[in-house]
């Protein structure tokens, strides 16, 4: 990976961390434990930066290697808030995840334009092109769903599960690089972990 592409992954990570922390900022209830929105079990994910600022609370760190390489950590708070975070928090997380998928799709375009097989850039392959298009359409659609006030927790959970699957298909475009923590896979796995905690609790049946 060239330095320019590496820095583009860092930008995606930074955007995701910022969106996660902003969601906490906007949705945390006054006086809530550590200034964090907690999910089921009293767990919370936030950027290292935000967690450091909330250190007066007794938070037990939960080791999450992949999230940590994205600059996000998980803690457990003894004085937890409600079991399910507010729908607004869920919406914001879903938008942040969709945004990351869209950004990784654009990153794939840059990456695959510079990689060749049989003398042609990988980006010239129709299979690759449609995979990028699918990912961008899914990201836009998910963000559109998250913006709808009618979308309840079950709709958000279902949209999250679709986004997880779509993100994984997208990562395959990077081949082995998609399995590295410091590549685009790291940030999408982090978004999966965060969404699993805060969004996936609602299931029909």
């Amino acid at each position, binding site marked *: *990976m060239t330095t320019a592409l590496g820095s583009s992954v860092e930008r995606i990570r930074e955007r995701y961390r910022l969106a996660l922390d902003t969601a906490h900022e906007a949705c945390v209830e006054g006086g809530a434990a550590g200034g964090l929105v907690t*999910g*089921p*079990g009293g*767990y919370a994910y936030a950027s290292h930066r935000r967690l450091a600022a909330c250190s007066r609370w007794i938070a037990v760190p*939960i080791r*999450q290697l*992949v999230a940590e*390489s994205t600059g996000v950590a*998980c803690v457990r708070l003894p004085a937890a808030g409600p079991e399910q975070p507010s729908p607004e928090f869920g919406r914001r997380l879903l938008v942040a995840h969709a945004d990351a998928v869209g950004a990784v799709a654009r990153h794939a375009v840059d990456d695959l334009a*510079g*990689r*060749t*097989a*049989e003398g042609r850039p*990988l980006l010239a392959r129709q*299979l*690759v092109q449609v995979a990028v298009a699918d990912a961008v359409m899914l990201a836009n659609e998910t963000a559109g769903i998250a913006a709808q006030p009618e979308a309840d927790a079950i709709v958000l959970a279902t949209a999250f*599960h679709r986004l*997880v*699957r779509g993100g*994984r298909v997208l*990562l*395959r475009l990077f*081949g*082995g*690089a*998609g*399995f*590295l*923590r*410091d590549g685009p*896979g*790291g940030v999408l*796995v982090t978004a999966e*972990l965060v969404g*699993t*905690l*805060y*969004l*996936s*609790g609602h*299931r*029909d*049946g």
Partner: protein
Amino acid sequence: MVDLETVEKHAIDVAAELRGPDLVLDADPDTVAAHLDLPALRLHQATMIPPAHTEQPYRIDGKAVVGGSCLVQTVVTERLSYGDPGLVLVAPGPSLSGVVLDGLGDAAQQQAFYRRFTQRFTGPTWTFFALTEHGKGSAAAELETTLLPAADPGHFTLHGTKRYIGNGAHAQVGVVFARRAPGPFGIEAVLVDATAPGLTADLLPTIGLTGARIAQLTFDGLLVGPDMILGRTRRPSRRGLLGAREALHFYRPLLAARAIGVADAVLDHVRDARGWLPAAGQAQLDTLRARIRYTRDRVRAAASAVDAGSPPQHDIAAGKLGASRLAEEATLLAVELLGPTTLLEDPWLAKAYRDVRAFEIMDGVGDLHRLQVFQGVLRGVAR
């Protein structure tokens, strides 16, 4: 000689001992040395060594397990992966390099290679198979690692970088594919001693399968003598890349078996953790089980065909792709069914959730396998 059914039952028994060490190894790959005496790892290694090179066979009820068969390895790999796919990957043994040696090596090369695994006092030997370069994994014929002529006639120096190499960070020996001349037939398979000067291994930070210590290997002038070039007396079209292709055909059913073993284990894990499930969840689980049974049969049939000398490429591709997707779907479903804190409170499932993502990438990406199935349809041979 022990029959396949007995080997399978034995593999199921010994796989149970892999639970526990798997998590320790995930946290610290260097602890692998403490687990090398596990029967599961010894059985695994024994299935990889062809009878001609077996000194002390692994015995079940006094009968010898015969190594070298793709079907036996497929069955054993699946059942051991039910215990843990990471430990199986990280285990010492000839692995893919052995398959290349079997296909291309001359008698002296094979003997020297396998002696490492049969001499009891030399300690465990890990191997690597170094084909992939960044962005050239699927386009192996275009690889750029180079053999340059050295001062001594017939000798070369090796230059270039290989990426995502399993066991690359601690193997003692491995096969490297490198270019001696332009074109696909200008590629050689070279058996290198990883402790020789001119090789640096750097661990890559992977999302899962941490125990396998995936590495980047940089060759900077490692000296290659004529005896290190595999199949050097064959025609260029009958060595080099052909060895990689044949080894991968042999290996893909094993990789599929790994994915099936994990998928199966994940579904049992959900059953044990949840007991009762809502009807919709139970139906999803039952459907995955049915797909696992189907894929297992297909993969084993393909492995038998490999042993018979006629690898059905489209079937192997379909089996490998189907199995890797099953493993991913099983972990995703498990997390949906077991609830939002599962990935934080259930380390075994959290590990499987990360590990299985590798299967579709390893050994050639899914899109290329889909294209191979299409080729089978075109030729009228794909079912």
